[in-house]
């Protein structure tokens, strides 16, 4: 007993970038700890962000663990807290506590080909893994990134994705053809089948809308990927992040503690809804 586990630390917004505009707007925020020690995190972990007077929201940490000066979050405007985030300016101070949840076993994947498959704002949770793999490029074999949005305007991290080229094969897609779009047209799972990555010595990491994940996993299986070669994340409504408030469980496990990262090998045995 001792610490107030619900008390956030204060962090200053040091950078804001509008990734996607419109109804499903996404902004990227960098938060620097304003006081105290801050915390370290691992790829895939989340943090509970506060705007005082509005409340808290659990958001995936989108920066790599080796980035020490800030924590990055890409936040879609959906509810009360995320909408309040979209009103913030650089210099504003918010609350942050964490890190919460498990992480991608990136270290165990050394020597392997990594295939990332993201859709929509689902690029953010796997972005730290991509950044880590690129930063430790010599430890990994081929790095391939599939990423798609509804339209070219829905592609987040555009400049960063371009920077990846060279270190990684980047295959972008949009759902519907549009003038000026030279990459793949069609859904992410279809782009995956179009490129047919080999399951040989590979790990596939996918994150995105549930319907996309479903078909990505189907397609990976048909390409010969075994369940234990496939990793994804799940999200649920969370309030505490500490396995106590009782709402994010899938079966006996709280996603905030045992998740959000699951291998398909484990996840396939859990009920689809819970």
């Amino acid at each position, binding site marked *: *007993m*001792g*610490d*107030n*586990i*619900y*008390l*956030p630390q*204060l962090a*200053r917004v040091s950078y804001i970038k509008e990734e996607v505009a419109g109804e499903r707007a996404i902004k990227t925020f960098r938060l620097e700890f*304003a006081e105290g020690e801050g915390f370290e995190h691992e790829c895939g972990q989340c943090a509970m962000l*506060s705007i*005082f*007077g*509005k*409340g*808290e*929201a659990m958001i995936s940490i989108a920066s790599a663990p080796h980035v020490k000066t800030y924590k990055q979050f890409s936040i879609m405007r*959906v*509810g009360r807290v*995320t909408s309040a985030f979209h009103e913030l300016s650089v210099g504003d*101070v918010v*609350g942050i506590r964490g890190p919460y949840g498990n992480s991608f076993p990136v270290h165990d994947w050394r020597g392997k080909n990594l295939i990332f498959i993201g859709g929509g704002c689902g690029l953010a949770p796997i972005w730290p893994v991509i950044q880590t793999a690129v930063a430790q490029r010599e430890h990994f074999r081929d790095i391939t990134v599939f990423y798609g949005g509804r339209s070219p305007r829905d592609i987040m991290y555009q400049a960063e994705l371009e920077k990846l080229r060279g270190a990684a094969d980047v295959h972008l897609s949009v759902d519907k053809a549009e003038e000026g779009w030279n990459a793949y047209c069609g859904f992410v799972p279809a782009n995956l089948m179009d490129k047919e990555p080999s399951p040989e010595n590979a790990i596939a990491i996918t994150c995105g809308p549930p319907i996309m994940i479903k078909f990505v996993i189907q397609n990976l299986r048909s390409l010969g990927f075994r369940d234990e070669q496939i990793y994804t994340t799940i*999200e*649920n*409504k969370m*309030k*505490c992040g*500490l*396995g*106590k*408030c*009782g*709402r*994010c*469980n899938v*079966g*006996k496990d709280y996603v905030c*503690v045992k998740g959000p990262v699951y291998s398909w090998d484990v996840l396939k045995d859990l*009920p689809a*809804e*819970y």
Partner: protein
Amino acid sequence: MELILEKGRLDDWIAALEGWQAFAPSQEDEVWGYRPTASPVRLDHPNTVQPPKNFAFPQREVFFRFEQVKGEPPRLTPVEPDAARNVVFGVRPCDGRGVVRMDTVFSDHVEDSFYLGRRKNLAYVGLACLKPASRHCFCKSVGGSPVSTEGLDVLMTDLGDCWLLASATPVGETLMQAAGALLTEPSAEQRMELARRHEEALARPQKSAVADVGNAATRLKDNFDSPLWEELGKACIACGICTYLCPTCHCFDLNDEVSGGKPLRGGRVRTWDSCQFPDFTMHSSGHNPRDSLGSRLRQRVSHKFRYFVENFGTPQCTGCGRCVSQCPVGIDIVNVVNRVCASV
């Protein structure tokens, strides 16, 4: 430590507990509940409407306060849990067991300083149920006992003209020592009478029983997709009373309560929540993984009889029967468990 307290001296013992605020069941507007003791304390209550869980886990509590002048950083002021030493009398063994379940939840993974801060200053003086405290009791069928000391610091047993007090923890001994000369050594006859009454209580059948608690976790897993869940849950009006009155339900919400606008003032507040509320698990997107009455009934029952067993090796339900007796539409957790577990 086993000692005798004459029936007329209970108030004197309570008065001797210096530094402790004492609570005991009393009746107001026909509602039995734990309230500050008022002489005479009789301990002749049926099951209280609410369990004593609010002493360590209040229905509403503030974790910290915030104040923010527009354009300036917020100032946070942490709140410490109330350090009052409370002793609660008349706690039934099912509720004592409920305390242990709550201790598990708030100590597991990371310790909750608010719950545990109150808990370390709390003592529970239990009352053996020589007769079932309500017709909905089913403690025995979920591994409990009407004379158990689990979660209790002292267990009191009614011997007719006196109580026999048995300490179960060092805190219980301290409480009993504070009584000084009020407590006397039991005679051989009184010890025999205690044993006789406990045996009788253990042998007395309860009207309600979970049929096979040992296999419930497995059967509930097998029947996760049973159509019975929707059938049994369809009467639910999502009032949440089953969870609010449950000695082991711990689900909570966290919200910011704003008390002033300029500067912004408020607090982050924990309040009890309920898995039976439709928006409990609803995502901001509107997607809800538990979007039906049956799926929410399944969650409540599975948490009590499957998930808690899988995590901690024991059912979470302690068989107090409150969710059965107080449900406005007659949903009976014992019936639900038995029906689902028996289905093929």
